[in-house]
C-alpha cells in the first residue's frame, strides 16, 4: 500500500467507526505504541474532517502487560501511556494498531484498558489484518486483509518513525508486529 492507499483505507475506517458507534459523540480512540498512535492521529483528523467533531485520543504502551517479557527480556524503552481526555469510563473505546497478527498485543491492551476503567464498549481497529491468530480476537474495522507467507513480515511505515506512510511485505526482519 502506498501513501494514497493508506489514506483511502483510513478514511473508510474512520467512517465505519463512526457508523458502528452511532456517531462520533461517545468515541475515545486509543492507539497502541508506537505505530498505532500515528494511525489513530490520522483517523482522528478524518473524523474531524467528516463530522466536525474532535474525538478524544490517547496512547497505550502494552510493554508491561506482555506475556513474553520473561522469555525475551525487558525492552529498555517503554513508551508513554496517556489516557484520552475524559478517561475511558462509559466511552466507546476504539483500540487502534497497525498490524493484527497473533492477537497477543490486543490481549495485553485489553488487560491494561481494564485497569483504567470500565468502557461502555471496546472495539478493535487495525490497518492490516494478516491472520494466523493465536487468541480468539477479531477486529471490528480493518484497513486491508493481507496474506503473508512464512518468512515474510508486514511492515507498516508511518511518517514519525519511517518518514512516510506505507504498508509492505518484506522478508522477516527484526521489526515486531502486533
Amino acid at each position, binding site marked *: 500500500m502506498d501513501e494514497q492507499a493508506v489514506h483511502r483505507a483510513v478514511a473508510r475506517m474512520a467512517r465505519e467507526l463512526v457508523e458502528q458507534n452511532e456517531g462520533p459523540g461517545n468515541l475515545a480512540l486509543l492507539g497502541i*505504541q*508506537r505505530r498505532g498512535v500515528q494511525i489513530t492521529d490520522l483517523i482522528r483528523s478524518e473524523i474531524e474532517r467528516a463530522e466536525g467533531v474532535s474525538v478524544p485520543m490517547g496512547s497505550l*504502551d502494552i*510493554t*508491561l*502487560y*506482555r506475556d*513474553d*517479557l*520473561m*522469555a*525475551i*527480556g*525487558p*525492552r*529498555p*524503552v*517503554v*513508551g*508513554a*501511556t*496517556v489516557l484520552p481526555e475524559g478517561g475511558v469510563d462509559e466511552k466507546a473505546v476504539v483500540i487502534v494498531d497497525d498490524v493484527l*497478527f*497473533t492477537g*497477543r*498485543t490486543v490481549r*495485553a491492551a485489553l*488487560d*491494561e484498558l481494564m*485497569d*483504567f*476503567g470500565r468502557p461502555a464498549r471496546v472495539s478493535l481497529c487495525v490497518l492490516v489484518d494478516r491472520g494466523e491468530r493465536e487468541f480468539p480476537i477479531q477486529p471490528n474495522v480493518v484497513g486491508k486483509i493481507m496474506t503473508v507467507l512464512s518468512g515474510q513480515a508486514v511492515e507498516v511505515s508511518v511518517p514519525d518513525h519511517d518518514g512516510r506512510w506505507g504498508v509492505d511485505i518484506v522478508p*522477516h*526482519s*527484526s*521489526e*515486531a*508486529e*502486533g
Partner: protein
Amino acid sequence: MNQPRLYLGKDLVGLESLSAEQILTILDTAEPFKEISERRIKKVPVLRGKTIVNLFFEASTRTRVSFEFAEKRLSADTVNISSSGSSVVKGETLVDTARNLEAMRIDMVVIRHGSSGAAKFLAERIPSNVINAGDGSHEHPTQALLDMLTIRDHFARIEGLKVCLVGDILHSRVARSNIYGLLALGAEVAVCGPKTLLPLGTAELGVTVFSRIEEAIQWADVLNVLRLQLERMEAGFLPSLREYNQVWGVTRAKLEEAPNDLLILHPGPMNRGVEIDSDVADGPHAMILQQVTNGVAVRMAVLYLLAGGAPDTAEVAKEGVEV
C-alpha cells in the same frame, strides 16, 4: 520498539561499574514508570510471580518503603526482613540468611547493610538478582540515580552541569554513587565540606574540592546537601553542630549570593538547622520531595531491567518477537 536490550548484569551493586549508556538506560526507563504512580490503579503486571526479599540490616524508612512501593506497583510478591526480629540477632551469617531465603525460592534480594561491600559479597554467592540499597559508606546506587533523574527533569540534561556535594562526604555512600554516576554522564562534580569529613584522595576521582561553601555556591548549578551522619561519628569530627551550621549549613542568606538559582537536593532524612535550614528545605528551589517521587520510578526501572533473565535473552530480543 525492538531495540536490543542493554544488559545491566545480574545485580546492581554500584554505579562505579556502569557505563554512561547503562545509566541512561535506567533513567530513560524510569520516565514511563513515573506515570504508573499517578494512575488510579497503581499497578502493572510485569513482575507478577516474582518474589523479592527486602533485607534491611540498617534503619531505613524512605528507601525501604520506596523499594516496596516499586515492587508492589510491578506486581511482585515482597517480604521485608529487618535485622531486629530476625535470626540475625541469633548470630546467623549474611550468607546463611540469604541461602535459607533462596531455599524458599526467591528471585531478587534488595539489601541494605552497614558494611561496605555487603551487596557485592552477597551477589557473588547467590543466583538471585541483588540490588544494593546502601552498603556502609560504599555506594547507594538507586539514590544517585534518582538524584540524577531529578536533575535531568529540571535541566533536561546532565552533561556539562556543575554539581556540588556538600557536607559529610566521608561517611556518604550517596556521595560516592553520585560522583561515579555524574562523572560518567559528563557532569562536573565538586565536593565541599570540613576537612575532617572529606575522604583522602577525593581529587583523584576527578572532582573539584571547595573548602568554603560560599565558593561552591558561586560555582554550582546544583547543590546536593548530604545528611550529617551523626550515628557514624564517634568523636572529634566536628566542634559543634551550631558551628557546623554557621560555616557549612546551606542557608537562605548564603544562597542569596549565588549568581543563578541553584537546585537544592537532599537525600533525607534532613537535620533541619544543621546542614540545611528550613527556609531552604521548604523553598522553591528544593527538589527534596520530587526526589522521593522519582525514587519509586527509578527503583521500578531497576527492578524491571534486572528481572529480565540471563544475558543470552538479549540476543533473543534482537531477533524480534511476533506478538
